[in-house]
């Protein structure tokens, strides 16, 4: 395998991992507050289609990002209302959000299928990009890739070092105790859910504005689900999420690697790899039941009603 190819593989792995990273970062904050939102795939799709339509309409990529973030948080608000306010089953509601987003995105996007836009340009970082091999692979990306990395650091700092992070974790670990010391549990959960939605919208926009860039039905192809698995894989730790996202990115572009090694395998079989990898990772992680229980936010998936104190 030559060096040129190695650079290409690294470059592609980071690009492919970025949407997973964005979505998983949103979901981990949401889960830390005790809410499991299985609607990531639906919110991603809505973010992708609304972002794309906004760019088609206005010609501005900024408007596309804004639209995607707004629609993502709006969708999550719908979810939040049902599970936080009404206490609906989080699993069923999340699934409904995905089915709803899949259907609605296909419907409103049917007019822009096949249209093309000018996606985000690459922004090489001066000097760093000139480093051999890793320079062009790591420092020649679009603004969203850099933002995702930056978001990791900021979120890790907020979660681990600030009062906001402490509040968030208190709500997720023990909402009753948090409520008792005066934390507005429902408000914290709403905000966490909306952050998750905004990030999912952004992750979707990455698909339609950068990765392809165009809109087709189901453009996310299960990435929302893979991001959910990623959060478990990362044991709800933000540093691990970044690592996991780029590893999954690597798994998704393995056909490039195998090509480099001179193997020829049907692209349809290789397309299975990220999904197979997700299953394998899930099995390895959850086999240690005790560890998973220990690491997951304690109140994950359980509704909290401040009117009924336990």
């Amino acid at each position, binding site marked *: 395998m030559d060096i040129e190819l190695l650079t290409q593989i690294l470059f592609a792995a980071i690009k492919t991992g970025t949407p997973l990273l964005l979505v998983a970062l949103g979901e981990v904050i949401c889960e830390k507050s005790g809410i499991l939102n299985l609607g990531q795939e639906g919110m991603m799709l809505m973010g992708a289609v609304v972002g794309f339509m906004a760019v088609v309409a206005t010609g501005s990529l900024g408007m596309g990002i804004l639209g995607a973030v707004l629609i993502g948080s709006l969708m999550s608000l*719908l979810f939040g209302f049902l599970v936080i306010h009404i206490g609906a089953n989080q699993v069923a509601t999340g699934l*409904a*959000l995905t089915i709803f987003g899949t259907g609605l995105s296909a419907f409103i996007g*049917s007019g822009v299928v096949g249209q093309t836009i000018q996606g985000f340009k690459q922004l090489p970082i001066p000097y760093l990009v000139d480093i051999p091999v890793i320079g062009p692979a790591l420092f020649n990306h679009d603004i969203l890739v850099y933002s995702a990395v930056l978001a990791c650091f900021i979120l890790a700092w907020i979660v681990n070092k600030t009062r906001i992070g402490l509040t968030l974790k208190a709500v997720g670990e023990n909402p009753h105790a948090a409520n008792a010391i005066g934390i507005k549990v429902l408000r914290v959960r709403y905000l966490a859910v909306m952050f998750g939605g905004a990030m999912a919208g952004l992750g979707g926009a990455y698909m339609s504005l950068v990765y392809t860039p165009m809109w087709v039905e189901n453009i996310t192809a299960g990435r929302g689900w893979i991001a959910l698995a990623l959060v478990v894989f990362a044991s709800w730790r933000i540093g691990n999420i970044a690592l996991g996202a780029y590893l999954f990115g690597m798994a998704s572009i393995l056909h490039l690697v195998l090509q480099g090694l001179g193997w020829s395998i049907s692209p349809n079989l290789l397309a299975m790899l990220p999904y197979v990898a997700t*299953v394998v990772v*899930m099995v390895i992680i959850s086999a240690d039941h005790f560890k998973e229980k220990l690491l997951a936010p304690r109140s994950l998936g359980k509704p909290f009603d401040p009117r009924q104190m336990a």
Partner: protein
Amino acid sequence: MEIQKRKEPSTLMTFLSPVMAIVLTLIFGSILFLALDKSPLQALHVLLIQPLSDAYNISEMLVKMGPLLLCAVGLSLCYRANLWNIGAEGQLLAGALGGSAMALALIEFDSPLALVATLVAGILSGMVWAAIPTFLRLRFNSNLILTTIMFNYIALYLLVWAVHGPLRDPDGFGFPESALFSDATTLPVLADFGRVHLGVLFAFLAAIGAWIVLSKTHLGFQIRVLGADEPAARYAGFNSRRISWFVMLVAGGLAGLAGVAEVAGPIGQLTPVVSPGYGYSAIIVAYLGRLHPMGAIIAAIFLAVLYMGGDLAQIEMGIPIAVVGMFQGTLLFFLLACDFLINHRITFTKSSFKG
């Protein structure tokens, strides 16, 4: 306005909730059609009435109802036992793939047994596709939702690979399609006015069978207890692993049957697109039917009408076919919201009006 928790779940609301959800969905849809400059009345007529307007349309509707019902019956059993099997789509595709392999292997074999073998191969393939996530769940405690969804994608790519590779028709000019199945491996058509085939009958039988198991047998009782109150089931000494295996394998088998009935029925060969997402829609059917096999029949007919209506709306009014998925998603959402009323009561007191 005041919200109170009911002491007992309301039976009336359990049945009224799907009706309310459908009405709300239609209102939402009408607003959307207005926004698109289409007449809502005409659109709803094409979507909901026209599919039932003549014998041919009804038979086409039944052809779409078959796989929806088969998948939904299995899912209802799983959800009753609190097993979140989202894998009906993959199990359906596995059934289509396994059944096709058998049908193509027996293409020269002119006997009714060939059809039986094809159907059995489809059912077994669906069961295998359900068995893997079940095993991973019971042995390694892996998340059933995520594994079944991943297996949906894996089945899809496996099928696409097969239809481009080993199962492709050698005389098909390179098109990604298998050879046409022989008459012996094709499901007989039941009526001369349409394409209603034996698979549709299987779907009704499956629903009735599941209903009998669920309501009349000890196993069905165990399933219901396990779903409603797991500690109680454990205390009663029910074998939850055995129950899990049972519902998952039944669900996989039925979805597999749905898949093989598509390729050996209306399609007649293996193609890259076997299902327009029946396995996912079946989740909505199961919920809309209140996780009851008989309810699933009514719900499957409703969703089949919608599928059929979607086709007609695209042809006659230029409404994108995706309207079907949009309606389905909205329906499930409204349903979950309306289900709030099963366990809660909203009362309007005087004080709330004083404001």
